[in-house]
């Protein structure tokens, strides 16, 4: 099963150049049943990443472009009067897809944002007293412009907490950029991609991840990290219990992707920056810098 993930990653790396580690983390997030927030300036390949992953995983993908006048109904759908049957019929919105790319989520008003975030949390949508389940697997990949840009509503901490990981893609390096400039059009490349990991297999994987073993030693380390963030003066507010669970889930998925059946501290360290960075928010957006004191000071045993 793990071999398939490797094939998938290899294929994805052909499309998105020089971002192997980020792609790996994005897949890890997916396998851990989490949602992904990508925060970066426009044009570094956020949408390409979403489309590539959707294609390789054989998921139907829908993009929602968030704007300042988008309404919750534009996301979750609306009941429309059917003149034939004289009834209201629910027309599902773009959120009823296995993979949803929520582009520039922080350009929408908080009302519209929360419509999506609630769907992410509950895995179903209730409209006029009726509940509609969302498809499985369900994966939201939201992109966010850096909050200093004009016309943004930064996501509050409570909403940020719902994303398992936050990634910054960043500029490609020199060689990767040269290849990109030389190579063929990304869109046609994506169109030609085969499905490497069908949805059933993804569901199986997600199931298998929950069975990854976590020893007491790893739990000790995990708890040491959590209490460090709560006690240290470097962070305004420590990690929540939900964040602890998220960290452990992500670490399990990471261990699984590395063909191990038990989590080791390195797994936690590998996913710590994307999982804890946006939750700690120590004055900057550089996740790696935010978690650096944790990695340095919390000892591994």
């Amino acid at each position: 099963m793990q071999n398939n993930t490797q094939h998938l990653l290899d294929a994805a790396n052909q499309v998105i150049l020089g971002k192997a580690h980020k792609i790996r983390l994005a897949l890890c997030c997916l396998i851990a049943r989490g949602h992904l927030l990508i925060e970066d300036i426009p044009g570094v390949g956020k949408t390409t990443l979403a489309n590539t992953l959707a294609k390789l995983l054989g998921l139907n993908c829908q993009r929602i472009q968030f704007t300042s006048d988008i309404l919750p109904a534009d996301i979750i759908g609306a009941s429309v009067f059917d003149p034939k049957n004289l009834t209201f019929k629910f027309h599902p919105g773009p959120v009823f897809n296995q993979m949803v790319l929520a582009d520039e989520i922080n350009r929408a008003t908080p009302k519209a944002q929360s419509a999506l975030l609630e769907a992410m949390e509950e895995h179903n949508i209730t409209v006029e007293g009726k509940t509609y389940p969302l498809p499985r697997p369900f994966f939201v990949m939201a992109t966010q412009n850096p909050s200093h840009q004009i016309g943004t509503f930064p996501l509050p901490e409570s909403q940020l907490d719902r994303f398992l990981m936050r990634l910054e893609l960043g500029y490609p390096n020199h060689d990767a950029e040269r290849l990109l400039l030389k190579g063929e059009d990304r869109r046609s490349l994506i169109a030609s991609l085969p499905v490497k990991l069908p949805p059933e297999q993804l569901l199986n994987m997600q199931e298998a991840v929950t069975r990854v073993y976590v020893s007491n030693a790893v739990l000790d380390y995990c708890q040491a990290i959590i209490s460090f963030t709560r006690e240290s003066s470097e962070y305004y507010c420590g990690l929540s219990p939900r964040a602890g669970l998220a960290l452990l889930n992500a670490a399990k998925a990471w261990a699984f992707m590395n063909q191990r059946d038990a989590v080791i501290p390195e797994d936690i360290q590998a996913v710590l920056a994307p999982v804890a960075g946006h939750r700690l928010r120590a004055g900057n957006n550089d996740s790696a810098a935010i978690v650096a004191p944790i990695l340095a000071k919390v000892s591994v045993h």
Partner: protein
Amino acid sequence: MNNAHNKNVLIFLLSSIGLIALPHVGHIPKVLSVFFYLLLSWRFTGIWKRNWLPNKLMVFFLTVCGLALIYSQHQGVFGRNAGTSLFITALALKLLEIKSERDLYLIAYLAFIVAASQFLYEQSLFMAAYILFVCCVLFATLVCINSGKPQPGAALKTASIITVQAIPMAVVLFILFPRVEAPKWLMFNEKNQAKTGLSDYMKPGSISDLGLSGELVFRVKFTGALPPPRQRYWRGPVLSHTDGKRWTQVKDMEFGRFLDKIVFKGPPYQYTLLMEPQDKNWVFALDMPAVFALPLSRNANYQLITDENPDKRAEYKITSYLNYNTGYITRTEYKDATQLAGEPSGKIKQLVKQLHGFDGAPEDFIKHLLNYFRKENFHYTLTPPLMEENPVETFLFETRYGFCSHYAAAFVYSMRVARIPARVVTGYQGGELNTAGNFLEIRQADAHAWAEVWIEGMGWVRFDPTAAVAPERIERNIDIEQLVQGGFISYMPAGAAQEAFNWLKQTRQLWSNIDYNWQRWVINYNGRNQSRFLSSLGIDDIKAMLYWMVCGIGLITALLSWFLLHQKQKAVDPVLRIYNRFCKKIIKQGLQKGAGEGVKDFAGRVKKKLPEQAADINRITGLFIKLRYGRNATLDDLKLFKELVEKFKS
């Protein structure tokens, strides 16, 4: 510092200061205590009502008031009492102007000084324990000031741990730090604290004042066997001169040079004598002291005298013999010991004649006289009727109620009438055996007077006429209260009350044993005892002492830090211990595992440095991961892991 933080710390600080000043209430003038607690409660109120705190002008006014109070009470600021009052008043005033964290520290340190000044007044074990407790609370206050989130419980716990950890250090400093004798001015007022004991004269009735006092005079610990109870006579002043009523010591001791050499017989008794502070320089040795060291000396009356200041507790090592022969009598002694105030009355002469005082051997007369006391209707009581005129005659022929001083005086007087040299010896008799510590406690109630008669060929011989009348007075301890109330000696009722009494007695003995050791080993550890103790350990000069002190402190610090460092490693499981051994082997290569570094990352680094051993490193790391983080590690894995680590050579 936020407000809530401030509040908790302040409550803590003020409470601990209230506790610290509490024992001083008995020492400083009442007015100053009231002033102190008034300001303290003012400050307490100020925690909640900030506006009520005095402004600068008011504080100035209060300072003037405080100084005026001190001056009016002590007429100055020098000396122990005035100094203590000054510190306490300053502490109270400083409380009213807490502005920054620095003020909190200042107050805490001032409070430590006030706590320490307690020992100028009282040095008992209880007080030491109390001060230790109070210091613990002060430490907790300091912990609170420094912690982000002050929690009194946790702070107290930390403070107690700190205090316990400091104890070994304190012990080393106590034993080895050079002693500086307290300057005299510090002890200004201590004179009137010394206890009054036996006086240097005796009048019928004078000892009865002491008879009621349970106050401790001295304690004796024997190295070997204890002398039998009826032989425990602790020799004090010898009274040879009489004016008919009072018996006093002779002033002129010149004859001491002509005394015969004492011949000691029988087994020696070696003991340590711990004198409580007193106002006279007498040391009550077991009759008769033979071996003793400076500053003790034996005067012409065979009484031990110390040259040192008797206001302090002092310990002496003495050896005594119960059997002795003082040899011949000097002329002066003979003159003193047969002196009478005027011509004795006919009645007494008649009695002496009747008892063959004039025609028989002295021994026979003594026997007859003691028999006379025994057979005639003489009574032992601590509340005898007053005998103003001619006390000896009144006692012998009229009242016949009396205690040791009456009997001793009457006995010696009769001897002298028969021209037999005799004198009164005062001191203590008996003492209660503390079974817990196996030492004797001699209290004021044990004060006694007996007689000494010089007999040809035997020297001065002790006779106790009181024993003839009330042998139980000599052979065992009497219950003073019973004696006083009933007028006669009686014993505790048997049965349940007796048991309860025994239990109480045992508890009291246990406590006084602890107290004895405390006084002996802690309070009495002065410069002289320190140098004696240290030279017994081979530490002779101050240089060696300092050397030992530094070593001792270094050792304790090392031990404590080792303990603190080791604490974490102790909890480690065997897998981790073996892995640590592996890490130690790699340290030789200049590679050290970072605290936050995972084993796999570390192995990656190590492999780069030691590529030829990559396989071993991989196996070791893999096994470690399996054992520590894996789901189903087996014992074989552990064995293999251990083996690999042991074989591994970097």
